[in-house]
């Protein structure tokens, strides 16, 4: 009984860590440019798929991962430069459709360059499970958690201790003022998209051995990442992490105790309930609207 609960918690936290990384990607881009990037999930797909095919080509795992993450970063920059930047003053809906167009484009590209099959990236360090309190924990679960923690710590360091990180924060607070003090805002925006794509690709690579990867996995993962980002309040980094974990754990618990058929509906039910009562998410600022 307890072992079962523990098992669900392990799985839930692992899944939640992935959602948190995707949600952080949404948050980064949202803060820097007020765009919700519906192509965010595609970076996970690119991370996983590219790693698989580079491994197939005979490259060692670390190199394959590094190249995949760099590829995603480059695509993130391209997305900002060729799709978002030219449509600067467009409506919210128009920007949503541009990023959806980009996600369809990336999916189309992936099934053309790679294929439409489902692939399993091998686990980073074997499949021998650890047994803790009657529940099994795969080494890959630990990789997911460990890498998520490292990524989050790196992000905290980047945003609080480095000039570039502070420049991104400044741009997100007030782009015009940032420009006046000499920050190259266009460069900062590209950087934000690159970072966000890298976050997505890292998440995609580390979960690929557990959840498998295919050209179309990005849709649901992206949407759930968006839900996680919205649970905490869009633009709130801590909120994104908490949102991701809440989502991962409740989804797994619901799948275990209620119905696995409705697993994918859980995030959307949660977000609707939260938004009914807290229209700005859990940690969103209760800002008054300026007229």
């Amino acid at each position: 009984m307890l072992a079962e609960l523990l098992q669900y918690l392990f799985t839930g936290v692992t899944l939640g860590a992935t959602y948190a990384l995707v949600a952080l990607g949404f948050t980064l881009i949202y803060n820097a440019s007020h765009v919700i990037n519906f192509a965010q999930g595609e970076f996970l797909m690119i991370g996983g798929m590219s790693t698989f095919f580079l491994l197939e080509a005979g490259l060692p795992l670390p190199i394959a991962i590094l190249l995949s993450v760099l590829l995603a970063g480059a695509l993130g920059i391209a997305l900002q430069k060729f799709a978002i930047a030219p449509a600067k003053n467009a409506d919210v809906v128009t920007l949503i459709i541009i990023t959806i167009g980009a996600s369809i484009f990336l999916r189309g590209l992936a099934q053309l360059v790679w294929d439409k099959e489902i692939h399993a990236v091998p686990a980073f360090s074997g499949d021998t499970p650890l047994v803790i309190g009657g529940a099994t924990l795969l080494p890959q679960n630990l990789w997911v958690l460990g890498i998520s923690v490292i990524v989050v710590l790196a992000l905290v360091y980047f945003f609080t201790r480095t000039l570039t990180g502070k420049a991104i924060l400044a741009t997100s607070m007030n782009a015009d003022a940032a420009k006046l003090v000499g920050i190259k805002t266009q460069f900062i925006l590209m950087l934000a998209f690159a970072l966000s794509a890298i976050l997505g690709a890292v998440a995609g690579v580390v979960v690929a051995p557990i959840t498998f990867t295919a050209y179309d996995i990005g849709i649901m993962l992206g949407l759930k990442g968006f839900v996680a980002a919205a649970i905490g309040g869009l633009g709130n980094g801590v909120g994104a992490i908490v949102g991701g974990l809440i989502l991962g754990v409740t989804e797994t618990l619901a799948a275990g105790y209620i119905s696995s058929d409705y697993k994918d509906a859980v995030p959307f039910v949660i977000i609707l309930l939260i938004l009914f009562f807290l229209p700005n998410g859990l940690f969103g600022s209760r800002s008054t609207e300026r007229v």
Partner: protein
Amino acid sequence: MMQALKSPRLGGLSALSCVLIILPFTLSNSFQLDVAIQVGIAAIVVVGLNLLVGFAGQISLGHAGFMGMGAYMSAILSGTYGWSPLLALIFAAICVGGLAFLIGGPILRLKGHYLSMATLGLGIIIAIVINTESWLTGGPDGLVVEPLSLFGWALSPFDEYHLLGISLSGTQVWYILIASLLVFAVWLALNIIDSPTGRALRAVHGSEIAAQVVGVNTAHYKVKVFVISAVFASVMGSLSAHYTGFITPNIAGFHHSIELITMVVLGGMASTYGVILGAVILVLLPQVLADLQEFEMLAFGLILMVTMIFMPKGLLPTLLNLLNKPKQKTTSEEAA
């Protein structure tokens, strides 16, 4: 007289009717007529959706959910429970309208991305329910739907009918039905836009706070237009189910919702004729791109991005602006 012909109501409606009357004579086979009917169904849905998105400025990324609910309620009530299709259609529309009314209150308080999130969630939940409750809906395998019938007179695309001495195929009768409904839907939409409700909605779009300050009950009008657009989607979902005779959960899916909102934005938000153009393009594009086979998705995504980047106002308003530029008098009103 010239002025009247240029107005969106009289001029636009007569132009639309002319196109709809001439169109079947230019189509050479029943496959093309079938595509025309699909375009018509989509067009009516987005004329309704445009009231919400284009005029009231509220995003819905879940409208296919309403369409799917209408389709499945019609299919199940008329098939499994033997209701008359018309009664099932009306009952489905009332239920969908009721759901939109209940959920519209809390959802439409949300702004921007939170509203997209909530409508998206609603649509996905409906799609997942349809997919999962297979004892009722047939699940992912889909469901066979009875033909539309009225007082024992069944309208199947595969039968022959005789009207006023003219012999028509079932598909042709369906075309006449959908074309008439499209003209009616446009007339209705133009009237709503020109009514106190429509003016209130445009005020909400302009500035919700300003509208409240001058005494517009913005919540009331937003819910009203949400319900109207949901009912449009439900009715067309029902009709489309009876027309195609077979439905799958895809009709309620996220992709379909995205297709619908794309028709609105691509054709031209707040332009009733623009969104019809959007429906034409988005239904025809996959047919044209199907020849490209594995490049289809790539091309579709690219076309979507490029059009929206270079014509953020949508096709029809951009084209009209280009036409009007030499005369210096560019009014966006004409796009309505």
